[in-house]
């Protein structure tokens, strides 16, 4: 027995905080310790520091944001630079091991933790999309991202488990939001996979996470539906939710209307989702009017999920400058400078003009990489200056693509 306990002791020693975790907790403690001590009259600080330090002990929730702000403002320039990094970048480990660890310390309540973990899932998916757009989504980077997504979803459900009993509606909202986020990125990555097949395996991962979270959400939704019928406060909240959902749908419609008018299947699919959201909203309203509150809760939650999914999809496509990916057929991307092109594309002047039409003319490539190439003339002369959006790797073969191009007009 003693031998077994000694073995336990030996193996238990391997369990420890990671260096980054230990450092992050240490930083928070140091900041807390710099607040005035009751018995420390001799330890003098500047009046400015006293103002900051005295605010640190306001409450457990209040002081950590102050601490983080201090770290970020005075010592965190590297941390800030690291924020936009993706796997493979030199500062990526600073982003995940320092910045995100510090932020996770701020998230004290299970609700805050769930929200933060959902944000991390979103961040990992954005990283995958950025890499796919750049053509840098290697297997190694995909593995890192996929493992982290899985881990964050685990942590998310751990936190939601802690709030469901006391706040089933909050648990449902949090889970629905994560489901919307995953579905939105599934759409974006599916479109990206048509340009860059390396994104396909990430799409599969996201699909399996969508199924997992949707299954989990159904369980939480059941609890929220049971709870709503027995509480007048919850019914009143449900009626308030109706207005919020209606606004989210309105926002999604407004964003859809800013996209190029096009009858591609992708655009039709998005428009159909708006119809689905409106129908669910209507069903929710009807069920509210007949006091079928459990059904109303499910309908409104569905409408909200769809509306949020669309809003996230549109925002993500816009932030990656990828709206054109929703157009039908080959995508032509006119450009004057690199800024007119999607992330990581360059505006190449190397292609020969095939159009003599005045104004803004486009040529469609018939090459297999048509989505990578677009041609535009930027002048109204008969010998326009041609500018093309291409991936840097495609420039060597672009002349061949142009030779096969046919002329179209806008």
């Amino acid at each position, binding site marked *: *027995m003693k031998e*077994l*306990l000694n*073995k*336990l*002791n030996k*193996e*238990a*020693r391997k*369990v*420890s*905080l990671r260096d980054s*975790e*230990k450092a992050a*907790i*240490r930083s*928070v*403690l*140091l900041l*807390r*310790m710099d*607040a005035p*001590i*009751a*018995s*420390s009259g*001799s*330890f003098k600080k500047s009046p400015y520091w006293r103002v900051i330090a005295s605010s640190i002990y306001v409450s*457990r929730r209040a002081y950590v944001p102050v601490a983080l702000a201090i770290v970020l403002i005075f010592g965190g320039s590297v941390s800030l630079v690291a924020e936009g990094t993706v796997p493979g970048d030199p500062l990526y480990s600073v982003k995940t091991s320092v910045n995100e660890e510090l932020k*996770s*310390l701020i998230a*004290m309540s299970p609700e805050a*933790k769930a929200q933060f973990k959902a944000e991390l899932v979103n961040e990992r998916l954005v990283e995958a999309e950025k890499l796919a757009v750049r053509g840098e989504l290697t297997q190694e980077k995909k593995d890192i991202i996929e*493992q982290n997504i899985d*881990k964050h979803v*685990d*942590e998310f*459900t*751990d936190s939601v*488990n*802690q709030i*469901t*009993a*006391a706040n089933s509606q909050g648990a449902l909202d949090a889970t629905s939001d994560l489901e919307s986020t995953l579905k939105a990125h599934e759409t974006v990555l599916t479109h990206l996979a048509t340009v860059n097949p390396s994104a396909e395996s990430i799409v599969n991962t996201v699909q399996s996470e969508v199924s997992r979270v949707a*299954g*989990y959400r159904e*369980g*939480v939704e*059941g*609890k929220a539906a049971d709870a709503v019928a027995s509480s007048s406060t919850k019914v009143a909240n449900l009626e308030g939710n109706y207005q919020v959902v209606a606004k989210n749908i309105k926002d999604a419609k407004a964003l859809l209307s800013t996209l190029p008018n096009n009858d591609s299947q992708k655009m039709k699919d998005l428009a159909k989702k708006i119809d689905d959201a409106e129908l669910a909203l209507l069903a929710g309203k009807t069920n509210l009017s007949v006091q079928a509150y459990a059904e109303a809760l499910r309908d409104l939650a569905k409408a909200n999920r769809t509306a949020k999914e669309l809003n996230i999809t549109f925002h993500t496509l816009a932030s990656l400058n990828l709206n054109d990916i929703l157009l039908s057929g080959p995508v032509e991307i006119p450009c004057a400078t690199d800024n007119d092109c999607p992330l990581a594309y360059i505006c190449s002047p190397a292609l020969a003009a095939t159009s003599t039409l005045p104004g803004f003319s486009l040529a469609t490539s018939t090459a297999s990489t048509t989505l990578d190439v677009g041609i535009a003339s930027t002048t109204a002369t008969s010998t326009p200056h041609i500018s093309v959006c291409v991936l840097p790797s495609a420039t060597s073969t672009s002349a061949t693509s142009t030779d096969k191009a046919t002329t179209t007009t806008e």
Partner: protein
Amino acid sequence: MGSSFDKKEEFVKAYDQHADAIFRYCHFRISNRELAKDLTQETFTKAWKYIADGKEIENIKAFLFKIAGNLVIDEYRKVKQSSLEELQERDGFDVESKDDEKIVFSSEVERVRLVIEELPDKYKEVITMRYVSDLSPKEIAEAIGESENVVSVRLNRAVKKMRELLRS
């Protein structure tokens, strides 16, 4: 501890020295890495608050384990209050850390760990402090507010109980 500067320096030293042991203790007792991390931070925060209030601590290690032990008990109470088990049964989710974050022991030690899980709380507490976190019986006595003699008896009974459970 002397001046506030000394207090801070000593406390940071204590953090560097005992943070892993506290984390290990919490992780072993609640099987959830994220929560164990939170409890570790909370343990040191509470300890510092105590020091900052001008109170004296004789043995910082034992004091830290006393706080950690209380926080673990609070967590047990919280879990009992919320109907987590019901949710887990229904949805198939476990509050424990997932596979990549679980403590991975050899099969032999894993058996011991499972047996410890079966022990009554008061035995689990002393066995974990003694064999996972390396506290001496004297330190355990200070941490749980009992005499050294009581701790020794408790440890012996816990080991005896473990032996029985392993045989069965």
